[in-house]
């Protein structure tokens, strides 16, 4: 068993969900690290897109911003938002998008806007950014969150980005281009979605955690299959590659053990 931090674990697990040749909306931070790791391992033809306008990016240093010049040299096109969010994403050309959130509900709907009531918000969060667009139109959505009970809620304080909304048929009702969330990766487990109800379902538990740990740490009912496997751990090679990608630990050092 290799020694690794939470961040390393999350990034490595997330990377396994990127398939070769896919068009990936990577953003920055963990998703970027996961996408780059996937490109360096099993998905060399993944096309990494940053919503600011970079297409097929291959940064030699990890970017801090979606608009970071580090995305520029070596990418194959550098355009703008209408291109990435309109012509590419809304047109259904993005296979997988990554999102984080402050709150998630049992259908994978996300809040990145306010904590507290809309009328008197306690905390103004960043807002949608491109999140609502990605959640509406990417074929598949990978959600990455730190696992705190207060984040897995029965009802969102504010509904920013669509998961499976109210379940089967909801996305079709709003003529959404994309398929919605396929997986939620936390630092304790992975969830997927029950195909029939489109409600969140336990997919695998990370080493060191039990099913009960997970159920105790969410505020809604989770579908639990008969057999819940243990999440596959990162390999040393994956960890080494991540450190080569982020030699200064800009992302890896954050929240690491």
């Amino acid at each position, binding site marked *: 068993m290799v020694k690794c931090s939470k961040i390393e674990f999350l990034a490595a697990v997330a990377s396994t969900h990127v398939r070769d040749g896919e068009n990936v909306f990577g953003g920055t931070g963990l998703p970027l690290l996961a996408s780059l790791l996937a490109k360096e391992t099993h998905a060399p033809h993944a096309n990494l897109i940053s919503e600011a306008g970079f297409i097929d990016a291959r940064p030699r240093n990890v970017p*801090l*911003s979606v608009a970071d*010049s580090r995305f520029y040299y070596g990418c194959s096109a550098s355009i703008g938002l209408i291109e990435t969010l309109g012509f590419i994403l809304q047109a259904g050309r993005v296979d997988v998008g990554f999102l984080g959130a402050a709150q998630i509900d049992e259908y994978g709907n996300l809040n990145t*806007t306010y904590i507290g009531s809309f009328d008197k918000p306690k905390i*103004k969060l960043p807002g949608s950014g491109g999140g609502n667009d990605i959640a509406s139109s990417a074929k598949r959505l990978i959600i990455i969150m730190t696992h705190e009970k207060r984040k897995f809620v029965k009802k969102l304080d504010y509904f920013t980005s669509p998961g499976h*909304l109210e379940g089967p048929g909801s996305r079709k009702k709003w003529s959404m281009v994309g398929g919605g969330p396929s997986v939620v990766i936390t630092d304790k487990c992975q969830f997927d979605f029950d195909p029939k109800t489109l409600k969140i379902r336990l997919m695998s538990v990370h080493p060191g955690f039990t099913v009960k740990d997970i159920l105790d740490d969410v505020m809604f009912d989770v579908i639990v299959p008969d057999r819940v496997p243990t999440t596959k751990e990162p390999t040393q090679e994956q960890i080494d590659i991540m450190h080569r990608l982020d030699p200064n630990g800009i992302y890896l050092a954050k929240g690491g053990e």
Partner: protein
Amino acid sequence: MTGTEIDDKRITLEEAARIVPDGAHLFWGGFGYQRAPIAFARELVRQKKRGLTIYTCGSEVDLEIMVGAGVATRFDIAFTAIEALGLANNMRRRVAEGKAQVEDYSNLAMAMRFMGGALNVPFMPIRSLMGTDMVQYSRYRGDKKLKVIDCPFTGEKICLVPSAKPDFSIIHVQRVDKTGNAQIDGIVGEDLEGARCGKKLIVLAEELIDVDEVRSRPDQTKIPAMYVSHVVVAPFIAHPVQCHNYYDYDLEHLMMFHKMTKTEEGWQEYLKSFILDVENHYEYLNHVGWEHLMSLRAKKPWGY
């Protein structure tokens, strides 16, 4: 074939800020850490503007400065934070205090609102926002925030977002000639549409280039002079963020900024030290220090 006289639209940063009246609506250029017109935000603060409404997809340090200093109170935006560092502390505080209001859209929605404004049509259709609280709630636009309709061609649901036509567009570019023809390197974000949607356009540029240079490769012009009201030329307009091919972001300064804004006291200290107590943009740059600024200069071929 013709050799006509050419207007010189250059004014100083102070003059440009003076043109913006209290209560004005502004498209705000730049995206993320790239080409943010932060020097203009600082100058608006020094001139004690009040009641501005800002339109942009996502901005960071500039919004923090303007909301923190009470210059801007309403925001038609999709995003604000200091990417990779954390929440926008000033915005968070001012919203909690009830001193700032955000009308929430997505990035695509805002970009299309700017395109609609540039095209002079009343709305643009998008496939985002539907099914969420961005349809349910409005901060100050009421039922003019957006409309979800049945498409008259296909019958499917489609969201119409109202075009934005603010009083001014403020954008930052790499190069401009004195008549206003502007060149942008790297990504354009939503600046092409944003530059064209405002009733007046102020272009801030790092470098002045000759009109003949523009006319020898006109397909490099991203914003033609005919849209431009005023031109401001100054270095390091985006500091502490970056300007592709000119300078990198100042991560040290960004971290200091984000840390100081965590408390109102810290923010007031930053406000005093880096904005109010410096007389103008050059004094700000002197205060930051030229040796430090020079260390941020972009290296070829990377552009940062």
